[in-house]
């Protein structure tokens, strides 16, 4: 039987009277990737922060059995005054790994993420894609039970996103973590998820992933129709 790592029951959250999450119910198993899809401002990041424990929810119950959480932020949140290697070593030291071993592990993870030789570079010296690879390496290096990904590739171009997703998928599978991947891009979500949810008006609705091809076709057709409708409306 699969082990449930994240369990959310009837989670609600409001900001200054504006209800963002109404009744969120979600279970994420070990070794499972769940994608949450929704437009900007729909409450995706709020949901991740509640799971991470950095934001208090108003009501409902959160059960998180994992102690180690790897969080890949939309903005990398690396320390600008520390080298790429030291940024990864820092979170390793925080879980009790000694300094020397932390540096060795940091280098190994950087190698694995295609960053061999960039150990002593500061974040400001690396490109957007490289910085996000460091951020991913930092999250994975602690061998997390839970990985939370908050639109990690939203600032990168499509080609780079596809390449990173391709590299990331096997690494995530190997980690056996419970993964929550938040995005506004359905193709990204379909590319990585075992299960997918739409966050709509504060509630999660599961999407049937039986036919991914059809979903992508419908999504593309929907977007093209939207553009055409807007154009007509503008004229």
């Amino acid at each position: 039987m699969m082990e449930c790592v994240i369990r959310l029951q009837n989670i609600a959250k409001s900001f200054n009277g504006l209800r963002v999450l109404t009744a969120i119910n979600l279970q994420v198993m070990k070794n499972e990737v769940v994608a949450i899809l929704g437009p900007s401002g729909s409450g995706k990041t709020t949901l991740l922060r509640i799971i991470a424990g950095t934001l208090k929810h108003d009501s409902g119950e959160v059960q998180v059995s994992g102690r180690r959480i790897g969080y890949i932020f939309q903005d990398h949140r690396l320390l600008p005054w520390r080298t790429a290697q030291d940024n990864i070593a820092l979170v390793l030291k925080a879980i009790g790994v000694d300094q020397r071993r932390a540096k060795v592990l940091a280098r190994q993870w950087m190698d694995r993420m295609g960053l061999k030789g960039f150990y002593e570079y500061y974040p400001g010296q690396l490109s957007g894609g490289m910085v996000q690879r460091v951020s991913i390496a930092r999250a994975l290096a602690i061998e997390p039970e839970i990985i939370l990904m908050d639109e990690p590739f939203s600032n990168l171009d499509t080609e780079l996103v596809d390449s990173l997703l391709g590299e990331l998928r096997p690494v995530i599978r190997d980690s056996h973590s419970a993964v929550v991947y938040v995005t506004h891009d359905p193709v990204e979500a379909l590319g990585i998820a075992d299960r997918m949810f739409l966050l709509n008006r504060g509630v999660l609705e599961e999407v049937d992933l039986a036919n991914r091809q059809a979903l992508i076709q419908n999504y593309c057709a929907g977007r093209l129709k939207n553009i055409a409708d807007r154009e007509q409306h503008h004229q």
Partner: protein
Amino acid sequence: MGNKQRGINWLKWFNHRIFFIVSGALATVLVWQILSMIFPRIIIASPASTFVALLNLATDGSLWRQLGYSLLRLLIGLGIGSMVGIGLGVVAGLNRRIQLFLEPMRWVAMTVPAIIITVLALLWFGIGSAPVIFMTAVITVPITYVNTLEGMLAVDARIIEMSAVYRIPTGMRLREIYLPGIGSAIMAGLTLASGVGVRALILAEFMGARNGVGHSLFIAWTFLDTPALFAWILVAFGLLGLVEFGVLRPIRDYLTRWKRT
């Protein structure tokens, strides 16, 4: 061809920032020279007589001895004051209640005139190094406190959230996130404090020490030796320059080396 190259070099030199600094210094000396020609030499010593007095002080060794006393007192006072100010600033930055508790003391420390602290220091410690160091430290505390606190409050909340997610312990958070994050603010505070500290030090030495640059100023003033008085004023400027360029700037450059990458 050679002339053309020389012309271009002159243009470069004119646009260089050092040109403006040297021009400013020369203009100051010029104004000083004009004033010394207008007023009697007992009121304003000329630049030439001041430099002769300075040369005499340097050759008989008294300049280096007195400068050494003052520099040591300044560094000890700045060191103690900044340790207290930075320590309190860090604690207040982490805890809003402590910040509010310290607010009245900060206000008193920042508004009390230097002369009052000097008089009290002389009353409590008598004449010597102790009141001078005390005075410099007391002047340094609120300045470094305010700058450190501002730096702490300005540390990126997103980085703090990251450290919470990765459960980075408080000690490591202070060392790895807060201190590097507030390095620039602390150095700005120390630079400001060293300027105010030199003024406080000279005042305290003038009133209550048996040696040092301030005491030498007092002796020159007592004997109406105006060229020596002006020479010691130049030494006081040099004291601040020594601390700023010899101590603070290398530390600041080290702390902010990541910004130049």
